[in-house]
């Protein structure tokens, strides 16, 4: 049995794999201390499966406090979350070379080589444009739920152009469009288009390569995915696993390699 432990800013994930594949996984809200989070989330997973810590042959930690978790003996090794995310995505689909990960507060584009090893990455956590925060602000301005924004945008036949990049200015632009009587779906499509443009300009810095996988909360918005495909001129695939678990999965696959599994 091989384990991956990923401690994020909001949630902690644990995942177990055997030689055959995923044995089980667990997600919970983080505790104040990452070591406690790691012990608790893996403890819950093991208990649920009727297993014990002794059954883990090799464990890899990633995310917040990954070094401390290793020092406390809960993992034999630790790896950065970017490496684990890239390796996890690659192992879900061996054709993947580029991973676009858009979270609530940041956006990352990760490139991996033909073995799933991290080649390069870029990140934006300085500007809200092109992150989930942008979509949240816009769905408020449009007065629709975050989940409805995508379906609404997909109904548009002529997306409106947003002339600004800054979230604050686009918000004003959205309000102006609505005041002038623009169709809500056309405004929504303009928003997803603007979102995609920001992500593409980030992605271009690493020269994206086929196949591209999209992960993170924003991946749930299909209109953004479609706009990204158009802007990149590339098809984008979804992961065949809850996107929250990809880091833990990557860590566990890495652990299996180190632990002599196949």
């Amino acid at each position, binding site marked *: 049995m091989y384990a991956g432990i990923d401690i994020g800013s909001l949630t902690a994930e644990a995942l177990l794999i055997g030689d055959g594949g995923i044995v089980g996984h667990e997600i919970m809200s983080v505790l104040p201390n990452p070591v406690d989070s790691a012990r608790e989330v893996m403890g819950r997973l093991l208990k649920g499966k009727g297993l014990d810590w002794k059954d883990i042959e090799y464990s890899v930690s990633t995310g917040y406090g990954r070094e401390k978790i290793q020092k406390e003996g809960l993992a034999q090794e630790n790896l950065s979350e970017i490496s684990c995310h890239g390796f996890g995505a690659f192992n879900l689909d061996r054709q993947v070379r580029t991973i676009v990960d858009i979270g609530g*507060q940041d956006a990352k584009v990760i490139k991996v080589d033909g073995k799933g090893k991290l080649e390069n990455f870029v990140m934006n956590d*300085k*500007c*809200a444009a092109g992150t989930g*925060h*942008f979509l949240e*602000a816009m769905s408020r301005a449009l007065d629709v739920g975050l989940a409805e924004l995508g379906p609404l945008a997909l109904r548009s036949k002529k997306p409106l152009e947003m002339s*600004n*990049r*800054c*979230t*604050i*200015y686009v918000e004003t632009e959205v309000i*102006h469009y609505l*005041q002038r009587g623009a169709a809500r779906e056309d405004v929504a499509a303009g928003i997803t288009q603007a979102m995609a443009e920001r992500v593409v300009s980030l992605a271009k810095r690493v020269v994206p390569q086929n196949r591209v996988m999209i992960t993170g909360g924003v991946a749930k918005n299909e209109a953004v995915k479609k706009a990204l495909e158009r802007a990149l001129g590339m098809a984008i695939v979804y992961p065949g696993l809850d996107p929250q678990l990809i880091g833990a999965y990557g860590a566990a696959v890495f652990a299996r390699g180190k632990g002599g599994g196949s």
Partner: protein
Amino acid sequence: MITLGLDIGSLFSKAVVLDGDDIIGERMIPTTGNVAREIPTLMADAIKAAGLTRDRIECVGATGNGQDLVKGADFREDVVNCVGAAAGFYVPQAASVIDVGGQSITSIALDEDGEVVNFMRNDKCASGSGRFLEMMAAKLGVGIGEIDAAVRRSSRVVGISSQCGVFAESEVITHVNNGEDKNDVMAGVCASVAKMVSAQGRRFGSSGVYTVTGGVANLDAVTRIVHEKLGGEFQRFPFNPQFAAAIGAALLGDAD
């Protein structure tokens, strides 16, 4: 010659009446979605404040984002040239101007004759703009007119690390929820704005004589830190700096 300058900005619209180079009337209103219909009243009020009637105005110049909304203007001019004209004329020694408007920060380089030779504008990002300051003050429940007083009451500076207005707003809320004093957070917001303004100012080596215009220039809490950071010699714009572009538009009307 009596001229009128109008600056239809992103947050405020201003009108100024000049007799030669003397300001004899001025008025300011917030820019709303209805501003096109409010401009005639704004002009009329400024003319009235000058103790004149419309027929005495020989030239009307319009500038700002909404300059096209001004009907019957004799000319329209970019805000950079208007701010440059006003600063060049009233602060003749200035080699540069930093204009902090509602949606932009612009640094303008002037030659010995007060002519604009170069400029650099950040209007892509709200960071450090009047809008940024307005958003943060609103979250703190501090009115724009009370910012200086709030900062004077602060006992320390609670720093804001994000440049992005959206992220900075979340930071402000977190600080308030953690029980930080709103005056201390306001001081942090002003320090952050000052940092972004001076970064823009430094582009034209504001080590010489410079002035600061735009609504944010009215805030001592911001300009004090800008001067510390920039060095050089600061000379105050001799009128309300928020009117600089409108004054410039009126001045250019006399020159034409």
